[in-house]
């Protein structure tokens, strides 16, 4: 299956999803980007340089871990985990960012901008900019700045400027709008490092390509470690980059692929970010592309909610929307409560701390594993780790000892100031 062969159809479309819907002023910039990307994709030395850098800088290949305890506890399928959490900066986001950094050098641009929700992508972009010597501005919704101070702290310490966006819901989609506004002004020297596989073509294809390193490794590792391919693969889906990353390794195999979205307060609550698993989204055009959006009948976007800021997004990767429509990817949603329980269980049985985003995939795998045979295999993409998001996780788990600690610390800072 070659999703990216557009020779018979419309460039940048996957079924009816995708495309480029941008102001005319960006037409030349996006064309320049597309051309540069095409050159990189057809140049084996580019990919080789990318892989080498990922090895030396980010610790690739990331391992696959067998979760023997959790599997035994659930009494069903054997569960394996692809450890993207062991990347530098703690998530798969670095794959995309280093790839786009190399591309930015080929474009000859000296400045990068990015949007960020959870702060993971902003953190990864700031890291790349520091390493490659690029100026860096990160746009982040004011609500997210308030809930993700540790990531903001790291971004600023790496020399990035973090702009708190005050428009709209003050979350990820508003940060994207603001990054777009910067781009239409500064495109001459600035590359927009979009953080997920959404937005106008070629971003969905380009981000998926950099993330495909995950699936390539995972397929070979599963064959080596278990002698066969997994029966099911679970990945969480915000914009869709980590899911596209791992799924691409298995498109031509008989493996069931499952995307796990943010169920928030559950179906029917309207407080969620499940575009495909629930029935609330419809096809529309926003933020440069056509896909399923959580929007009202007027075409205005709805408020979304998730316990995980990185899944709290109105739209979804157009390739996944297409594959879902073709019954090639199954979609489920995990609620905030299911995520909390899955996180506790994973920590206690395996000593792993998946990011709250990632835990959505764990929650659905945990739910389905018991009804599978003991000789069946599940692979979960552990897109990130949560130990550095201790503030968010402690709050999600409502940890009283943590709260006491924060109060004591705050009192201490207060006293020092006086």
């Amino acid at each position, binding site marked *: 299956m070659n999703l990216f062969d557009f020779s018979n159809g419309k460039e940048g479309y996957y079924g009816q999803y995708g*495309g*480029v*819907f*941008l*102001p*005319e*002023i*960006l*037409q*030349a*910039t996006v064309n320049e980007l597309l051309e540069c990307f095409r050159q990189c994709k057809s140049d084996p030395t580019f990919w080789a340089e990318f892989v080498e850098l990922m090895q030396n800088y980010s610790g690739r290949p990331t391992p696959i871990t067998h979760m023997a305890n959790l599997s035994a506890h659930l009494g069903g399928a054997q569960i394996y985990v692809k450890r993207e959490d062991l990347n530098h900066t703690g998530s798969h986001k670095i794959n995309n960012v280093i790839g786009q950094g190399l591309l930015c050098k080929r474009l000859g641009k000296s400045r990068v901008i990015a949007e960020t929700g959870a702060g993971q992508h902003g953190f990864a972009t700031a890291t790349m900019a520091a390493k490659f010597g690029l100026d860096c501005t990160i746009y982040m919704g004011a609500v997210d700045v308030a809930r993700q101070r540790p990531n903001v702290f790291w971004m600023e310490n790496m020399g990035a400027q973090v702009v708190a966006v005050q*428009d*709209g819901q003050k979350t990820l*989609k508003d940060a*994207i*709008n603001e990054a*777009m*506004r910067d781009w*239409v*002004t*500064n*495109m*001459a020297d600035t590359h927009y490092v979009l953080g997920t596989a959404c937005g106008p073509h070629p971003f969905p294809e380009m981000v998926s390509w950099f993330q495909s390193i995950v699936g390539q490794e995972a397929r070979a590792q599963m064959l080596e470690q278990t002698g066969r391919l997994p029966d099911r693969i679970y990945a969480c889906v915000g914009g869709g980059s980590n899911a596209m990353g791992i799924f691409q390794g298995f498109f031509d195999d008989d493996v069931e692929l499952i995307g796990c979205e943010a169920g928030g307060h559950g179906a029917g609550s309207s407080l969620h970010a499940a575009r495909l698993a629930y029935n609330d989204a*419809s096809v*529309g*055009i*926003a*933020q*440069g592309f056509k896909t399923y959006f959580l*929007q009202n*009948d*007027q*075409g*205005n*976007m709805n408020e979304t909610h998730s316990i995980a800021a990185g899944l709290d997004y109105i739209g979804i990767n157009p390739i996944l929307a297409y594959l879902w429509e073709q019954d090639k990817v199954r979609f489920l949603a995990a609620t905030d409560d299911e995520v909390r329980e899955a996180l506790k269980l994973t920590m206690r049985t395996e000593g792993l701390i998946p990011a709250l985003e990632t835990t959505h995939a764990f929650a659905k795998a945990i739910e389905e594993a018991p009804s599978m045979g003991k000789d069946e295999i599940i692979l979960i993409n552990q897109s990130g780790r949560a130990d550095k998001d201790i503030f968010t996780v402690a709050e999600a788990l409502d940890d009283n000892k943590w709260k006491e600690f924060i109060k004591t610390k705050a009192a201490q800072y207060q006293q020092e100031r006086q």
Partner: protein
Amino acid sequence: MGLQSYIEQRKADKSLLVMAHVVCGYPSFEANMAELEIMAEAGVDLVELQFPFSEPSADGPLFVRANEMSLQNGTTVNDCFEFMAAVTARFPFKVLMMGYYNTVFKLGEEQFLRRLKAAGGVGYILPDLPIEEAGSLHALSAELGLEPIILMTPTNSDERLAQLAAAARGFVYVVARKGVTGSKTQMGDDVAALVARCRAHTDLPLGVGFGISDRSDMEYLRGHADMAIVGTAALRAWEQGGAEQLRQFFSDLVAA
């Protein structure tokens, strides 16, 4: 009479026309009507009524807030069309819809165009709909006698300007500089050179927008362009000093 003929006719007695802008439902439809009254008094030739959208990524801060507040007030697409019908019945200037493509897409292209026509609008400006994606909408528009307004920008190559010119109807919206709406544009050689490049590709009237804010901008544009497009500066005047300041703003602007 088509938009192009209308503009050419108005230009017989005026060296530079003016197109103004209001965001429907911000601060309220009553306030919009009062603003339009002032614009009509000042002899404004064309008005774009912006239908608010939740993701106005081509707009600057003042319009972003206006879009947001209007939606918070509960403005619907239906309200905007009803308002447009009232406006076109009452004022002599011609009216365009301005907005984002999702508004059109959700309603359905044909339904959108029929409603626009019924409300007395003559065309539309959709800054996030590139010509590659506009085939069906433009074809339907031609059938119904509605005109898509195309933007030409400083980053377009000559080859691209030629493609844009082929799709353009009514007049061409020349974007004076990079960036979003709102901040000041330094009128100078760059703008003149851009207008000359656009002129080389089309015989349609040229309106210049983005950052037009005072009489000196108007003086500069006279002789270069056919129409000045005024957006943010007028909204700022209204926000700062209501009807009185807006009246002052337009009378300064159009004073020859």
